[in-house]
């Protein structure tokens, strides 16, 4: 039942929740359950900024089964305004419009659907920032 794991991860995945260190301010996404990797300090959950810029990206042509109907799709390596770095799918943009350095904002979208159960899994994607 892999779908249980999607349910367990739903809150941080929907709301872009990461971890922030009370000691040195380092942030992590996905959130860490243990201690800060840099200083060993205590971590707390925090909603991360929803804007950032694109550091690098790829267009995926050979996808795992759950994403096979989405190809080709774009996955970005993104730095949020507070410096947190993460990987997320880009949406509302075509491959030839994507530029390293472009401003992005988070949006909640459908990720994939389980065929047998029809269970739809949602999560954060990023689109070109408006305004």
């Amino acid at each position: 039942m892999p779908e249980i794991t999607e349910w367990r991860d739903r809150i941080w995945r929907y709301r872009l929740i990461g971890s922030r260190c009370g000691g040195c301010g380092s942030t992590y996404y996905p959130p860490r359950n243990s201690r800060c990797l840099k200083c060993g300090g205590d971590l707390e959950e925090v909603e991360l900024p929803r804007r950032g810029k694109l550091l690098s990206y790829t267009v995926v042509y050979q996808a795992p089964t759950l994403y096979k109907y989405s190809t080709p799709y774009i996955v970005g390596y993104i730095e949020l305004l507070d410096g947190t770095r993460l990987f997320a799918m880009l949406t509302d943009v075509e491959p030839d419009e994507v530029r390293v350095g472009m401003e992005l904002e988070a949006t909640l979208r459908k990720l994939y659907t389980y065929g047998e159960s029809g269970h739809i899994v949602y999560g954060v994607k990023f689109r070109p920032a408006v305004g």
Partner: protein
Amino acid sequence: MEGIVAVGYGLVRVGEYWAKDIVSLAADAASMALDMAKQPSVDALYVGSALSGALGIQGNLAIHVADELGFADGLAVNISAGGASSGLAVLSGIDRLLSGSAEYVLVGGVEKVSDNLPSDVLEAILIDIDRRVLKYSGLTDAGLAAIMARLYMEEYGVSKEKITSLSVLDHENGVNNPYAMFRRAVSLDMAMSAPLVADPLTIFDVAPYGDGAAFLVLTTKEKALEEGLDYMEFLGYGVARNRVPISHRSNLLSFDASAEAASVALSRANISIDSLRFVELFDNFSITGVLALEALGLSGSGSGADDVWSGKFNLDRQVSVDIMGGLKARGHPIGATGAYQLCEAFMRFEEAPRREYGLVHMMSGFDDQAIVFVVGGGGSA
């Protein structure tokens, strides 16, 4: 570190073995290694396999391989650690010998990817790397490598052609390897214009997965000399880990674990990097091979691709890289790949009897856990 040697190697050509199951494939390679070592009594068996359990092929694999080989007793340990599986099997065998608990150990790995659909194999590999990061972003292993490649090109102003020149070198060298999945040279044009897997990487930037098995018989140098066996000596090893998930790293292009493992291995072996004759990279992608070159200290940051492009690591140069074809041409039987690299190093020493040194680099994921062995040729003759 001193005194541990390999006295036998065995491997099958990487490819698709429809008529063989995973246990008999492992036994074929292991039997060849045992024959070369003159059929010693083995005290412990360590079998690496990344996916045999995850894909439902055979759980608890090592006891089945031990039984197939007719081992009546002795330790049988299964190690599943992605691309580092067989490297950790070798390392565990060495430690067993160093502890004095064994006189002979059989170590290696086996992978069977053709028993499952490619999409199922891909998913098992992605879960090995990091379920949360990859599954919720749609990223694949090749996609992650592609993001690194574009970052590298942006950061250092390096062309894609220079990165891909490592794949061309692999194919050129793989022609000489009878166990390689692909024994033909390819042109840079062909590699660049091939179908995209994850832009900007084409199928020629991605090491092909294949079925494979490779094993080594290890013992002490003292025992090898006593029995009159030719050997390859393990002069040093190092192992280190990088941060996971990969989004928590401050620099995607810095393979810190590989750097640490190499530094420890060379210092244990008391050998400088300049005295190496060859280096085997765990180049599961062209870009990861380039980043490994830089981490190991063979190239400066941002100059690995330039160095490969300029021919600095070709076969006729002082330090040659991927002399038997690397992961691209030999093929990548994931949990067995590290054992292949060591078997190939042994083959090299057989052909070049003079004393020389090689460095073998392995890792799981993207530098998640790195192992480096420094090896040297030798023999009783």
